[in-house]
């Protein structure tokens, strides 16, 4: 049997068998490296954050309903009976594709004993208030920021200096 030796410039002698393994590994690497398709990115570029949020909410609603149903030990058949609906309707409700009406959500809330619409929760939106402060201890704008922070506020802007006091106007 002869010598199966290959010479690769800069890498010396490589035995034929090893070279074969190297070539195979390179071949597989090329297969993955050859992926340059942008179809998914191109498609997702057409999805706005608002559209994604709408889908997320639909699917989270379905997920919450499903988990509550399972939590009660109900099957979809039992849920359909309790809701007085066909099984196909329940499947749609749980599919993450359904556009629920308020009436349907209220019915499901009552049946499963869960909250799906939190409309009575605290309003966490930013509140803008105007106030005037007259103080002998506040002598600089920094003191006003400190006072607001210490009284539960988050930020002040539009501070106007009037004579010897500062007035927060927004």
């Amino acid at each position, binding site marked *: 049997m002869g010598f199966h030796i290959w010479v690769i410039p800069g890498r010396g002698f490589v035995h034929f068998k090893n070279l074969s393994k190297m070539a195979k590994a390179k*071949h*597989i690497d*090329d*297969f*993955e490296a*050859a*992926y*340059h*398709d942008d*179809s*998914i*990115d191109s*498609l*997702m570029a*057409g*999805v706005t954050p608002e*559209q*994604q949020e709408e*889908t*997320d909410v639909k*699917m*989270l609603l*379905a*997920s919450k309903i*499903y988990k509550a149903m399972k939590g009660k030990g109900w099957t979809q058949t039992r849920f359909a009976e309790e809701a007085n609906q066909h099984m196909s309707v329940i*499947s*749609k409700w*749980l*599919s*993450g*594709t*359904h556009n629920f009406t308020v009436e349907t959500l209220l019915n499901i809330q009552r049946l499963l004993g869960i909250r799906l619409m939190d409309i009575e929760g605290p309003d966490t939106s930013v509140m803008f208030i105007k106030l005037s402060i007259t103080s002998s201890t506040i002598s600089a704008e920094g003191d006003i920021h400190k006072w607001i922070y210490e009284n539960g506020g988050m930020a002040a802007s539009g501070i106007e200096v009037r004579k010897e006091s500062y007035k927060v106007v927004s």
Partner: protein
Amino acid sequence: MRSKLKLIERFSGPKASVYSILEETAVGISSELMFDRFIKRYRKDFEVELLDIARRLHSLGNKTGCLDVFFKMDEGLEVDDMVCALYDVPDKHLRLFCIRPSEQMVIIGDGGPKTTRTWQEDAQLTKSVGDMMQVSQILRAKMNNRDTWVSTSGLYLEGDLYISKT
């Protein structure tokens, strides 16, 4: 033709990993995901439906995980093949076939508009389901042999992800 499971990072997230099957289309030159082919084939006529599917895949990965109710289960012909279809949007019938190994993982394939009562009556759907059944069979064999396994987080497939090496 060589093929391999490939994670789609665009859809995957903390709740689930979304994979598709990367297939070599020309040796050493180009490769394509089954899902890429699905997009290209139907984008012209079913763009709205495709966008809806893409949004839901993103939600599966990032918000909800792959709950069984989001899929039409038991679409394959074998009891344990895990072949299913993403739930159709009401009145829309673009069907995407998948393999759902767990709530934290889904492998998306190809599909098409379902205009017949069963997928067996449509050549494209029959091919898509057949492809997924074949992938499922290979994957299950690899998992049984411990050549492929699920990561400790439950989110990823690890080990040999090749479906076909030749």
